[in-house]
């Protein structure tokens, strides 16, 4: 329930390793998305490598587990990398991303890889599925069989353009689903440009609040803030919780940061090397890795 400084340092190193894995996976796959996975490495580190989420990588179908639902399926490389580090499957398998016969489909397929709760790719439907799960657990609770399970839904900000998201927001608010937490990757970009140019979303906090949600806003690269927000969300009663995680798309790789053109493409060999050099040198703080 509390992270000490040395744990945070270790988790930051994990997040950096996951970013390197993402670059290596994309280089090998030669297609896929760069900006979102890099931007969400810190959030996924907390989700899979701390005690914030009840789970057992060796027993992915454990009935009492919390549910991690990825709605914006295109950022799956970061999820796969975090899952591999957590022990869901061997790390070597990461390099099979998007290849024929791989369990790591270009967009996640639930039936391929144990530990995935849903298949996703088409945007806007993850929150509905997460809300359905949360409601199902509420029904179970009335039968007093299992402890309450939390459902955590990861979403992109671009998918807030989808009408279905707001149908789900309205429905979850109405049903006071306090075992539902959504985390929005608020990185302000989507394929065609900046979110506020493509389709203005602000004021987001007010929008969710008006639908009966509780809203937390955090620095999506601050491990401690992410961790604390997940616990705070669990503690809030009678309301679903929206965590707006402010992130930098392409975080950690200078030439990708804030550039929406990196939403849906992988680096080429040269760009990949440059990205890895920067990640290995911790942004220039150490030089030995570059020599």
């Amino acid at each position, binding site marked *: 329930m509390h992270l000490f400084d040395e744990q945070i340092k270790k988790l930051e190193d994990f997040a950096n390793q996951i970013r390197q894995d993402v670059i290596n996976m994309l280089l090998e796959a030669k297609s896929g998305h760069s900006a979102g996975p890099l931007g969400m490495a810190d959030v996924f580190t907390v989700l899979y490598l701390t005690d914030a989420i009840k789970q057992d990588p060796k027993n992915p179908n454990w009935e009492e587990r919390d549910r991690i639902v990825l709605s914006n399926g295109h950022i799956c490389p970061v999820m796969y990398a975090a899952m591999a580090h957590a022990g869901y499957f061997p790390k070597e398998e990461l390099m099979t991303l998007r290849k024929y016969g791989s369990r790591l489909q270009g967009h996640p397929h639930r039936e391929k890889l144990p530990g995935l709760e*849903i298949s996703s*790719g088409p945007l806007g439907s993850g929150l*509905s599925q997460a809300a359905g799960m949360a409601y199902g657990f509420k029904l179970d609770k009335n039968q007093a069989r299992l402890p309450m399970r939390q459902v955590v839904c990861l979403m992109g900000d671009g998918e807030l353009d989808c009408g279905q998201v707001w149908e789900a927001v*309205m429905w979850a608010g109405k049903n006071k689903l306090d075992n539902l937490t959504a985390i929005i990757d608020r990185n302000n970009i989507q394929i065609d440009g900046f979110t506020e140019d493509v389709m203005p979303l602000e004021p987001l906090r007010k929008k969710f609040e008006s639908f009966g949600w509780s809203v937390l806003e955090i620095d999506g690269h601050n491990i401690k803030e992410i961790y604390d927000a997940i616990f705070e969300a669990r503690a809030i009663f009678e309301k679903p919780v929206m965590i707006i995680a402010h992130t930098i798309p392409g975080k950690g790789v200078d030439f990708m940061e804030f550039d929406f053109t990196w939403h849906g493409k992988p680096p080429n060999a040269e760009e990949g090397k440059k990205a890895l050099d920067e990640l290995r040198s911790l942004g220039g703080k150490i030089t030995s890795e570059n020599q």
Partner: protein
Amino acid sequence: MLNQDAKLNQKLLQPDVEQEPLRFGFGRGLVLAGRGDKNVVVLCADLTDSTKVSDFKKEFPERFIEAGIAEQNMASLAAGLAAVGKVPFITSYAMFSPGRNWEQIRTTICYNDVNVKIAGSHAGVSVGPDGATHQATEDIAITRVIPNMTVITPCDSIEAEKATLLAARIRGPVYFRLAREKTPIITTKDSPFEIGKANVLREGKDVVIIACGPLVYNSLLAAEELSKEGIEVAVINNHTIKPMDETTIARFAEQTGAVVTVEEHQISGGMGSAVAEILARNHPVPMEFVGVHDRFGESGEPNELIEHFGMGVKDITEAVKKVISRK
């Protein structure tokens, strides 16, 4: 000659045959399914009474979920509920579910292969006065094309009740098609009904009519009339469109050498198309298709619309004669 093993309604061919809307049978089946399995939950999109889920709501209020006029959310909510062990039925007019929410059904229900049942009521032009916006004539095509999906078209309210109960018991996504208006009761409680097994209602050597839904009744009437002219027509109630009973269909095509399909649906992509897909591979014979020919519906009384769009008894007898001439 009617097949005695089908145990059909004794009053079937009499003018005072009992009539009831399919959705009433669905409503009864839903209550029985709810009693049999506490995991059965029902989702509705602001159409509780007209889809007849009101009885379930009354008996199991805690398992009734109002989604509002939001069919896309309803489909994916159901996918989530199924992922945690529930057996959700989603209900609306077929035009809206599986019409409006097709992609959610395809990806969040069928690609996930979760245990969601989709009941589409108000299918076909016999919806009547509401007009084309509410008359689903494309739903069989768009559901049967999705992998993992089972598609059922009950012929009367008794079969609708059986289909509902069976859908709750089998694992995986099921779509079943219901109609708004009263239609004749063709079967009885004792009639066989098994998913994936077509029922032979009438034997005949000259032509086989393969029908589904309430138009099975018009098909039987057509067969009676043709019998008077010396043409012996077999009639099959092909209630399961997917997985289809290839064996029975191929056998009858072989025995009779000519097929007429009858459905209240677009000709393209519907039940008849599925039959053609099977016969083209197994036993190609001349075929005629009775159904809606690439048009939208319109307002009117159900019976006059059935005639107007070419699915009346006369249209079926003409199709039979035409297919015989092509033998």
